[in-house]
């Protein structure tokens, strides 16, 4: 499947396609999305009983490496991976039957609201509140940094309830959705405001589910970062072999050659970190916490560093909008913020190592 996905992206998600989709209002390529659904990418994490492939974190991470390399935009991560995982993790047979086949087919796009204005994706950051009112629940408050909410048919909103954190299915038409302009033109983010909004509670989602969902999101993002990091590095190394200055390719100059050697360590480390975190998540390994928090900051930092250095190594040409290097820098800078920041994950990593020590 990885191989087919790579070919599909090479064909339909080349640089010109990315730029076209970036410039479009929705930031989404419906044809490509359909092709991905046909390949089984969209249903990858959905259990087989709900028309999905039933694969796990390892396969997801591989797919995200390809998606990251191609700078794929759109709802793959928020809908097919995060929202689908959330519903799968719930105990809600009804929600599963209703939502999962639709998400798996790509017909329904869902997204999760799981952070507030501070953007730390932590339980304490949830600022929507929910109170029961007869048969339904009523939601109040704001959530931010939602991915692809502009396309969403379903919003899954985390909220504080009288009995702890819960999650609610919300109809986007009943919510005020404000777009958040991003420096990464491939991202479509939104902020939502709920006021007396009626919603259906998804059974069996609590604070533990929230943490599990963050783990999945982090591993998926780590895959994207590892893949993107490697691609912009490869692009740069190719350029170093062809760009001639002072009578020889600039890759022959030690200053540049040594930068590349150091960056290769970061690139390989990101790949190792993302893949081992995925494996640890899939197998519920004892060192899961260590490896997932490691992947979170190592992949974010590697991608940021490699993308930044790639512009420097290209020189003036990469200072132009038409060169792709800055698109990777923009994605790297956004990815470094999603689902929690490096410093926070370094802290978690030490805490996990302390437990292990």
């Amino acid at each position, binding site marked *: 499947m990885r191989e087919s996905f790579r070919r599909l992206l090479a064909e339909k998600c080349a640089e010109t396609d990315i730029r076209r989709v970036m410039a479009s209002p929705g930031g989404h390529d419906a044809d490509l999305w359909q092709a991905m659904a046909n390949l089984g990418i969209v249903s990858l994490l959905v259990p087989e009983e709900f028309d999905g492939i039933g694969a796990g974190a390892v396969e997801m991470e591989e797919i995200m490496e390809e998606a990251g390399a191609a700078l794929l935009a759109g709802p793959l991560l928020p809908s097919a991976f995060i929202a689908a995982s959330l519903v799968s993790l719930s105990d809600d047979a009804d929600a599963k039957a209703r939502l999962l086949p639709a998400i798996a087919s790509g017909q329904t796009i869902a997204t999760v609201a799981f952070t507030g204005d501070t953007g730390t994706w932590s339980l304490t950051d949830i600022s929507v509140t929910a109170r029961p009112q007869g048969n339904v629940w009523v939601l109040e408050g704001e959530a931010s*940094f939602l991915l692809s909410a502009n396309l969403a048919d379903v919003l899954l909103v985390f909220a504080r309830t009288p009995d702890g954190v819960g999650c609610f299915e919300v109809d986007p038409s009943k919510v005020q959705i404000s777009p958040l*302009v991003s420096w*990464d033109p491939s991202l479509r983010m939104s902020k939502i405001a709920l006021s007396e909004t009626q919603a259906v509670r998804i059974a069996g989602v609590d604070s533990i589910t929230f943490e599990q969902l963050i783990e999945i999101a982090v591993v998926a993002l780590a895959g994207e970062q590892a893949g993107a990091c490697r691609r912009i590095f490869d692009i740069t190394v190719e350029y170093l072999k062809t760009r001639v200055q*002072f009578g020889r390719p600039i890759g022959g100059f030690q200053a540049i050659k040594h930068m590349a050697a150091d960056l290769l360590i970061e690139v390989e480390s990101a790949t190792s970190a993302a893949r081992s975190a995925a494996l640890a998540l899939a197998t519920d390994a004892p060192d899961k916490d260590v490896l997932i928090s490691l992947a979170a900051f190592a992949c974010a930092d590697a991608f940021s560093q490699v993308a930044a250095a790639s512009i*420097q190594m290209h020189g003036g040409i990469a200072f*132009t*909008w038409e060169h792709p290097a800055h698109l990777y820098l923009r994605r790297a*800078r956004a990815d470094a*913020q999603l689902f929690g920041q490096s*410093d926070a994950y370094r802290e978690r990593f030490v805490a996990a190592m302390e437990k292990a020590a």
Partner: protein
Amino acid sequence: MMNDAKTLGDEVRVWLAEHWDAESRRAKSGGSLAEWMDQVVAAGWAVPSWPAEWWGRGLDKKSVSLIVNEFRKVGAPGAGQDRTNITANSVMQFGNDALKQKIIPEFLTGRASQCLLYSEPGAGSDLAAVRTRADLQGDHYLVTGQKVWTSGAQNADYGLLIARTDWDVPKHEGLSFFIIEMRQPGIEVRPINQITGDSHFNEVFLDGAVVPVENRVGDEGQGWKVMQTALAVERLVMGDGAGERRQGSSKNNVVSLIDIARETGKINDPVARQEIAQAMAYRKLNALNMLRAKQEMAQGSASPIMSLGKLAMSRILHEDARIMTKLMGAASMLDGPEHSLAADVNYRTANAYMTSIGGGTDQIQRNIIGERVLGLPRETEADRNVPFRESRAVTG
């Protein structure tokens, strides 16, 4: 000498009092800026160190400083252009008399403006690898090629052009320097879209553009030397302010990591404080270095520290942007006028490359510091002694 200087100071002050209204900062005679400049040139204040027959007064450097100082005191422009005017200096030093008569007054009075046609797509760090050709055809050259990273090309009257007139000698030896009229059919200017969203620079396409033989500055083959002289004047003008001035093009020029930390609620975070300290230290240390450099130079000794400023500023600007991004957290993903702090940080993130790449990359700067300041052996240039036609810049 001190007496001479005193007398000169008096003369300048008297002249200024007669011609310049310090209150309104305008010429007493009224008129345009160019008309004021006509008076400055005529009086010999524009280029005081040049000979009297060429708009000057044959004075020494110290006297020029004195004159510039008097003009500065009353806010009058135009004095001491023998130290700052790139075009006028190049033409004066290397041009023929006809060219001097034609070009210099236009530039000294500010009636004409220029752009620099040096960089090319294939000649970035390797400035001498020029592939734009100037072919002699009777009394003029036909110029064909492409230049990049030209600022002000749309509005410029003239371009300072370096082009290749001989392809059969090593790359530094086959170049010639021209002053070309920009407004002609053979020249097309296209703005470059920068990753910052700005378009400060242009590509300039030359396709059979015409430049008369008398507009060649210096002999054929002397182009590299003429350009080096022009660059030296430019560096002098830029001085240590190079980095900061570039950074001045940021939308918000006041940097305070402390303010941002306060605004983002991170001011008491000990980890953030360490990073803020280090970034502010880099900036402060560079300022202290530049201050010391100026003091050393004021005492007459050349200061090697000055040449560190651009490289140091590059680290400062990148580090500032990185730490601002960290302080902002998730909000740094945003952009646009509604998120002006984020937009400023984003702009800084991209614009820092203007210093670390533009005007000589950090890597080139380190070469220069290593070689010219520390006296380490020069890089061997693979194409130094090869006819340009056979070098990899041409053969690929």
